[in-house]
């Protein structure tokens, strides 16, 4: 069994380190993910970890093992955020896991939640709205109209799993203070699935048109920037287009990783690379939507 150390802080940047540790896909031996020294994980990190476990299960590989963090506060937080409850479905958990008895932490708008069918999207949207409206208005200074758009963006991001992934996924929503990176609070939607990814989804209709440049990066560009969908129906592709329209209005950011590429629509407050290619492979697709607190004179 190969041991892969989970980065101390697992987020959209450090996921590449985790992917590097996995190596070729599918792995040729059983895996143990060592999170004993973990200090923190973003919703992106937690949902990506779960979809990795799911991908290993779907590849009929031995059930991966996952050693839980040693620090009580980290364990407790991950438990209240719903991670261990979900992880028990696809990992053999090693170490004592706290019981999930209390409410989610106050900054968790939506604990880790599975998305497998359209009904799950209804549950997620119905469940989050009241709590999201309160937090977005009070803590992020977002106008009521922005909270509606937030729920729409969440709905569309979750639907992509149901419509395109060919398997299930996970969603989590959290607000936190990006003191170093932005100096403001943000709310983050993270959606991750273990499905076929953007390249395989679009390959039958788009690969020949693109030619030599075809790959994960080109597929992401078509889907995210040109609203291309594998369906010929002209109404398709509106979900990501609608999310981009919403984020443009509220200086938000969307980043999508699929296979070996990551594409981001980067607002002025961030310095992320718009396109990163030739990354270590990670199964499925991972979407992160970030909406920053608005300045006092924002629209």
């Amino acid at each position, binding site marked *: 069994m190969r041991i892969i150390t989970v980065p101390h802080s697992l987020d959209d940047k450090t996921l590449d380190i985790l992917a590097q540790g996995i190596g070729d896909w599918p792995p040729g031996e059983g895996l143990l993910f060592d999170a004993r020294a973990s200090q923190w994980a973003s919703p992106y990190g937690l949902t990506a970890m779960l979809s990795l476990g799911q991908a290993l299960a779907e590849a009929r590989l031995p059930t991966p093992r996952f050693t839980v963090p040693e620090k009580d506060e980290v364990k407790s937080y991950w438990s209240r955020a719903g991670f261990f409850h979900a992880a028990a479905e696809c990992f053999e958990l090693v170490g004592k896991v706290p019981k999930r008895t209390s409410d989610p932490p106050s900054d968790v708008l939506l604990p880790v939640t599975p998305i497998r069918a*359209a*009904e799950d*999207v*209804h*549950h997620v*949207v*119905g469940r989050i*709205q009241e709590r999201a409206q309160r937090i977005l208005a009070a803590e992020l200074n977002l106008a*009521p*109209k922005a909270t*509606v*758009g937030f*729920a*729409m963006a969440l*709905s*569309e991001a979750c*639907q992509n799993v*149901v*419509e395109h992934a060919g398997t299930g996924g996970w969603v989590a929503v959290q607000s936190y203070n990006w003191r170093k990176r932005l100096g403001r609070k943000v709310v983050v939607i993270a959606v991750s699935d273990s499905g076929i990814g953007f390249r395989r989804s679009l390959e039958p209709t788009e690969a020949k048109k693109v030619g030599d440049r075809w790959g994960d990066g080109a597929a992401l560009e078509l889907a995210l920037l040109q609203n291309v969908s594998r369906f010929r129906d*002209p*109404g398709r592709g*509106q*979900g990501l*287009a*609608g999310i981009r*329209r*919403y984020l443009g209005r509220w200086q938000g950011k969307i980043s999508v990783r699929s296979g070996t590429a990551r594409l981001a629509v980067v607002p002025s407050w961030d310095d992320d690379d718009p396109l990163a290619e030739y990354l270590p492979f990670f199964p499925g697709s991972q979407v992160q939507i970030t909406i920053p607190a608005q300045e006092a004179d924002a629209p």
Partner: protein
Amino acid sequence: MMQRIDLAPMLRETLTTPYSDMVTRSTGVALRNRIEDAISGASHRTTQLDFTAVGLLDFSCADEVVAKLLLRVFDEEDHFVVLSGVTDSHLDAIDHVLERHGLSVAALGDGPLGARVLGVTTPDVQTAFQAIQRLGAGDAKRLADALHWTVERAADALQSLALRRLIQAAGGTYRPLMLP
């Protein structure tokens, strides 16, 4: 007479969840099928889709319930669709999907904007549409007089409205879809 379809109860009958949000494409397809059945089973020329008590409306569901429905209805001569109960929280999704398909729809409203055209529109089309709601039936000269426009300008706006099924027109006269 106008056929009124109350979407919130129809949504609850279609889904097994207790929520009043019109989200997901599959929900939109299921709702549109029921709306199309209701339209085909009625003799009315105008159908009013009432969004009252509908919570969130996302882009995918709006695409099916509004845009695709309009495309289907436009295949049939002499059938009109108007929306009512549309709130600010529905507007973004409806405008977005209509613009994507190059469509327009009339929305009834009690708010400060009153009745208005959603989706693809121009200032002249919007102004003419709202004037016609006040004026009632008439012709291009009547509209031109009311708006201090030339008759040609009024006739152009009326033609656009008629082509987009936002008013009923016949033999040089017009009337709003929903008479007071």
